[in-house]
């Protein structure tokens, strides 16, 4: 197995706070790699640096052998990196299908097409419907995103990342705010993705993480303190300390 | 280029910069603390000039008129906050802009109805009307020195208020965390009204100070407001220090550009070409400066600390 994503010596500070502290991470092609850690460990900051929304103070990020540390955010999806947001971030004024269409079209060259009505773009529409169906939003296809339930929005969040046909998915707490039933739907969805795509999963739901992950990295105060398969992480003393305190 | 003229123009630039600061400080205070865009701020500047003009004729003395006009414009600012601004705080900036644009039309038209279409010149008392000799070959109008002094006193007073009083502490706290200040049991609404009144008094003061030189006139507020915008954009919106330094910078560039750009151009182009292009370039100079600063620092030169 080769590493698709390699993060080395990454640092990022906000004022005096080191959100990312000398962080090293290797994500293998095809694995589902979960990153867990207590609140405030800097997990979202890590995702933001991987997706290019925030630039690190030092260190390197390389994706498939290319140094992307300083690559602008909008260029990274074209290499095959897609992210979702912990706090749902969709285009609320548009329908489910229109959101997915935009995600699909983002990868199809430029959109400086001023003339042809986008509604005529049958292939993209068909593909958008397929993605909607895949996350069980087929019946909601024409509905405005603002009118979807929270669970449906979370699923669309994931579908948007899928629609961009990425090689690396950065999923930032896809289960955030979901009820038990919706959560188990989402877990089944993520299970279907496992092995298909390389995934970095940030999640607080430990059941989900230990069910889904091939490997787990534990992050505390901006630093990865342990990486390993679920069994070893469960046994790791440091991890137990981090989560349960000294006793 | 002659030395005397240069010093005089430098003083003129300083004077413009200080007046700009008086207008911009209110804008940036209100924006920084209340997140409110007030296009009508320039109208208070104009009202200050007109009210002071009327009072000068009524009382026969410019200085007394100015001292009485100050609380009047502060009250106007207070009323403006209650009537126009407060209902719009929760709205987005587009509503602020349109609402205060409407307010400008109303205020300007009222001023037109009250004071008529022509400008009003304000006579100065003898003590301020003469010339002062600063150095052997530098003689400047006394009133310009008075403007600079008065402006600096007001700026210092504002600095003291914001940085060394309890109210100022609340203002600064309100700028960074509105909820916290409310939680402390402070009447935030009263604080906001106070901030508006202070801002209005400062802008009004600028209008009163300039009026004896330029006359009180109808369009004056609308011209200065955009320059004041340039100042706070360059300085970094919400930053008092940024507003002060940017105001001086803009005041200097504008004044010196108008005075000397043709001489500078003559160094490398024909004299007629210089005379034709210099006014055009100098009229655009502050905007070009703004554009080039923004291109490299979109947040302005001295952005306030992150909230």
């Amino acid at each position: 197995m080769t590493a698709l994503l390699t993060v080395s010596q990454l640092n990022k500070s906000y004022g005096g706070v080191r959100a990312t502290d000398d962080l090293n991470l290797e994500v293998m092609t095809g694995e589902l790699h979960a990153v867990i850690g207590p609140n405030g460990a800097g997990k979202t900051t890590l995702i933001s640096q991987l997706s290019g929304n925030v630039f690190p103070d030092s260190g390197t990020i390389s994706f498939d052998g290319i140094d992307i540390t300083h690559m602008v955010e909008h260029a990274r999806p074209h290499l095959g990196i897609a992210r979702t947001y912990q706090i749902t971030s969709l285009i609320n004024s548009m329908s489910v299908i229109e959101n997915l269409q935009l995600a699909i079209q983002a990868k199809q060259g430029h959109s400086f097409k001023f003339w042809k009505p986008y509604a005529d773009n049958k292939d993209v529409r068909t593909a958008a419907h397929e993605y909607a169906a895949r996350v069980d939003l087929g019946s909601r296809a024409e509905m405005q995103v603002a009118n979807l339930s929270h669970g449906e929005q979370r699923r669309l969040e994931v579908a948007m990342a899928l629609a961009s046909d990425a090689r690396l998915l950065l999923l930032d707490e896809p289960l955030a705010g979901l009820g038990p039933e919706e959560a188990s739907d989402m877990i089944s969805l993520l299970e279907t993705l496992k092995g298909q795509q390389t995934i970095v999963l940030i999640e607080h739901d430990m059941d989900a993480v230990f069910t889904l992950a091939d490997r787990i990295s534990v992050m505390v105060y901006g630093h990865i303190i342990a990486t390993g398969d679920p069994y070893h992480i469960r046994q790791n003393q440091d991890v137990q300390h981090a989560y349960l305190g000294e006793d | 280029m002659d030395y005397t003229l240069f010093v005089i123009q430098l003083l003129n630039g300083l004077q413009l910069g200080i007046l700009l600061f008086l207008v911009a400080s209110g804008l940036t205070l209100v924006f920084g603390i209340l997140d409110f865009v007030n296009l009508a701020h320039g109208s208070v500047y104009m009202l200050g000039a007109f009210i002071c003009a009327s009072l000068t004729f009524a009382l026969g003395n410019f200085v007394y008129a100015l001292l009485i006009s100050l609380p009047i414009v502060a009250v106007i600012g207070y009323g403006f906050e209650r009537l126009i601004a407060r209902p719009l705080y929760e709205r987005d900036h587009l509503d602020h802009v349109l609402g205060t644009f409407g307010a400008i039309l109303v205020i300007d038209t009222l001023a037109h109805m009250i004071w008529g279409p022509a400008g009003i010149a304000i006579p100065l008392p003898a003590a301020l009307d003469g010339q002062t000799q600063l150095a052997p070959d530098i003689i400047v109008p006394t009133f310009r020195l008075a403007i600079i002094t008065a402006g600096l006193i007001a700026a210092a007073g504002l600095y003291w208020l914001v940085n060394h009083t309890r109210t100022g502490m609340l203002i600064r706290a309100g700028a960074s965390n509105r909820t916290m200040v409310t939680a402390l049991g402070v009447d935030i609404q009263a604080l906001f009204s106070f901030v508006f009144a202070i801002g209005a008094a400062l802008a009004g003061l600028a209008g009163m100070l300039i009026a004896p030189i330029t006359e009180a006139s109808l369009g004056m507020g609308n011209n200065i407001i955009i320059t004041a915008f340039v100042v706070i954009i360059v300085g970094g919106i919400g930053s008092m220090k940024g507003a002060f330094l940017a105001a001086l910078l803009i005041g200097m560039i504008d004044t010196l550009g108008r005075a000397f750009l043709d001489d500078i151009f003559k160094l490398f182009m024909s004299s007629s070409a210089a005379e034709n292009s210099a006014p055009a370039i100098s009229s655009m100079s502050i905007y070009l400066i703004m554009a080039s600063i923004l291109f490299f620092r979109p947040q302005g030169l001295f952005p306030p600390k992150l909230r």
Partner: protein
Amino acid sequence: MQKKVFVQGLILAAVLIVPLLLNYMGHPFYLDLATRLCILAIAAVGLNLILGYGGMISFGHAAYLGLGAYAVGIPAHHWLYGGMDAIATTNGFVQFGLALLVSGIFALLTGLVCLKVKGVYFIMITMAFAQMVYYLFISIAEYGGDDGLVIDTRSEFPLVNFDDATQLFTICAVSLFFVMWLVWRISKSQFGMVLAGIKGNEQRMIAMGYNTFAYKLAAYVISGMICGFSGALLGNFTTFISPEMIDWARSGELMFMVILGGVATTFGPLLGAITFIILEEVLSTITIYWHLPFGLLLIGVVMFVKGGLSALIPKAGDKE
């Protein structure tokens, strides 16, 4: 739907036919009013592309009207009085081409700066750039400075005569319909969808891989060019160009038209322009202080239309 298309057709027909009819019946005043209406509506349609569809609140679009008008006036001025042989002409194609070119370039250059910032900064900077153009023309003595420039000769085109009020009106009305159709097409295109996406959630669009800056810049340039075109017509209509055209109150009025009529709609800017022209006409016959009731009305609309005028803004995805 049928009914809506019918109403829209009726509006367009009325805009075109009523003024011609009134003119025929001996009221040329209304033809003038309608010509001005069409020209302002074109500018409002142009502004709507970025304000409505793109969510970029420009308070400086009067600058493009001014640039367009001077692009007609300056060549005509030199053609009459000599100098600047390269552009001295009354040829309408050259003048209008120049108007589009200059406004496009100005939009491109200023867009590079102001699109780097958002919100209030954007509003203020567009204002400042417009003011820059205003002061520029004031400072150029050759073109009349403060006093403005009288164009003694209108743009010359084959087949049509701009000196004929009826023909000029017809050209303006047809241009308006064309520009409305153009912006409608753009709004329905893939580009338009991207623009709507940026308005809805720019951060997400970037994360999806869109270079949002480039798309916004393109929209900004197109919008500026439409307003420049409107300015070229305005110069021909008034035959008198002054920096007053660029005054920021003019920019505010344009915004008012777009927002009152309904942003991000095809007919909104036209309806807004009609409302504005009628208000201005009616109020200014009652009193010379017509800005007073107009300002009060503006404040009233902002305060009391629930959620402010922005609430009237239909969401980007809403179909008309």
